[in-house]
């Protein structure tokens, strides 16, 4: 269980995370959603002890993250941050091997090799295993980093925007792997995603954040509702459904908003053109 109680983070005068209390039960996938600057990444980094908090306590699997030995914590919890700037020339295989570092301190056992190969295969990197990171695309690198934290083989897996730079196929593959990690291996997966629909389709539980606070925690059906999303993202979205999951349509303004916009849009402008298209469709 991940237990966050009364956690606050300030940068100077601005409060980025504001007295957040949260309990995430073990198992399943939890997605944290919210607008830019809602404090999602900051909260995730604090849970993973990469960032200190100004108030409150956090424990993961019963270990207090501020005083537990970092290596012990690394066997319990793996974290991948959003932007990973690694200037060193490391091969995919070597990078993934470092996922075993908290367990073996550098000495590989047969079991370690198995876990490494498995993680490489899961992230579809077998053909790239001896490629240097700086010779790969952003998406391939992202998969390599995720493979590394998978090889860490921890009970808790925290990923900030794991779908960063990934194409549709690899996004699906990534989410399927995370689903398997949660369902078959019983891992607790917490991800930050900006696409609410990925959260809706793949997560068991969604945490909605706004302005450093948790607005609501619930199942996709409880969270992906027009009123709640308007509150969280300040955008009107129509909600549809796909294979039983609520889907928010946010690629165009919802009809209500579009009507308002049409009032100010000049004819021939982009907004004008597509509100006209929407009207044609609804007619």
């Amino acid at each position, binding site marked *: 269980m991940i237990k966050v109680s009364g956690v606050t983070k300030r940068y100077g005068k601005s409060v980025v995370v504001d007295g957040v209390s949260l309990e995430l039960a073990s198992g399943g996938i939890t997605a944290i959603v919210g607008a830019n600057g809602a404090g999602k990444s900051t909260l995730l*980094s604090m849970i*993973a*002890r*990469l960032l200190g908090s100004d108030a409150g306590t956090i424990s993961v699997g019963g270990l207090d993250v501020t005083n537990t030995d*970092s*290596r*012990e*914590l*690394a*066997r319990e919890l*793996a*974290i*991948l*941050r959003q932007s*990973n*700037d*690694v*200037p*060193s*020339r*490391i*091969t995919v295989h*070597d*990078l993934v091997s*470092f*996922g075993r*570092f*908290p367990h073996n*301190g*550098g000495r590989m056992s047969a079991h370690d090799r198995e876990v490494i190969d498995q993680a490489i295969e899961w992230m579809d990197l*077998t*053909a790239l*295993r*001896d*490629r*240097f990171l700086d010779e790969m695309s952003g998406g391939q690198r992202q998969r390599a*980093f995720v493979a590394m*934290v998978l090889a*860490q083989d921890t009970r808790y897996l925290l990923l900030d925007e794991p779908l960063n730079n990934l194409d549709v196929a690899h996004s699906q593959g990534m989410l399927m792997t995370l689903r398997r990690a949660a369902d078959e291996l019983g891992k607790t997966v917490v991800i930050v995603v900006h696409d609410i629909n990925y959260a809706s389709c793949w997560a068991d539980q969604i945490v909605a954040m706004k302005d450093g606070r948790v607005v609501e925690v619930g199942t996709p059906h409880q969270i992906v509702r027009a009123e709640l999303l308007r509150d969280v993202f300040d955008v009107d979205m129509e909600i549809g459904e796909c294979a039983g999951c609520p889907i928010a349509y946010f690629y165009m303004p919802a009809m209500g908003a579009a009507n308002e916009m049409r009032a100010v849009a000049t004819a021939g402008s982009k907004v004008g053109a597509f509100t006209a298209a929407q009207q044609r469709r609804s007619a």
Partner: protein
Amino acid sequence: MTTAATAPTKRRAADQPASWVGGLVALLVLAVVSLFVGVQDLSVRDLFSGLSEGQQLVLMVSRIPRTVAVLLAGASLAMAGLLMQLLVRNRYVEPSTVGTTESASVGVLVMTLFFPGSPVPVKMLVAVVTALLGTWLFIRIIRSLPPKAPVVAVPLVGIMLSGVIAAGTTYVAYANDLLQALNTWMAGDFAGVLAGRYELLWLLAVVGAVVWVFADRFTVASLGKDMATGLGLNYKQTVNLGLALVAVASGITLVVVGAIPFVGLIVPNLISMWLGDNLRRNIGWSALFGAGFVLVCDLLARTINFPYEVPVGTISGVLGGVVFLFLLLSGRMPTR
């Protein structure tokens, strides 16, 4: 699957025992050549037909110590450069461009001014301490650089810092009539290496062994603070240990042989392009190439103006500078 099976062959060539044997044999040949180059006539044939007493003396007191010193200094300078580049996460740094070497010379100058009679190990210790302080200062300054600062900002800051420190030492040396002595220590030179005056260089082998033991940690640290912490590494402690080892290696080399520029810059870059940055995999080759490079420089230093010697630092500056320019113009150095 076929790509997976064939892809590794190119990289793994470096891990093959055959490659290692080849590299070591090449270095050994250079070392043997080094033993038989000098003003005093000494050839391999003499070795088998029996050496005269004078020749024995030259071999034991000068040639062997000199060759060993070159190998140790070259290997450890390349290793120190590699380690510093990984920990600072910048491909353009080495101890002699960030102020470490200049700071070590501050220690030597202080000891010469105030305790001129102090034994070499004490001078060395003080040089190591000032090298540590200088490196710490450099790290403090570059930590205050904005995160989006261009990649050359770090070496520029280093060059400025070394310039300031060098200006200070030059002034103090000038005011105390020690300028010539200062220049003599700073210019890397193996001519003064004789039995009984270089043995402290063996400490470099100890430094190398420590780096080898902690190689995995240093590589993990090179992934950056967040990733290293996520993997359970005590990031700060590891970086401090690594930079301390760099300072120790620089201090020792400076006191015994002086500054040999560019070794720590070009060797790690060439090795990184070839083998990548996993320290466990490339440290041996870095040491080997560093030793080979300085050995070649020293051989040139001894033969280019025979029977006189040119300081090895001059040769490595010219040779290394050319290689570095070539690397820059090849477009393979990171620009961001």
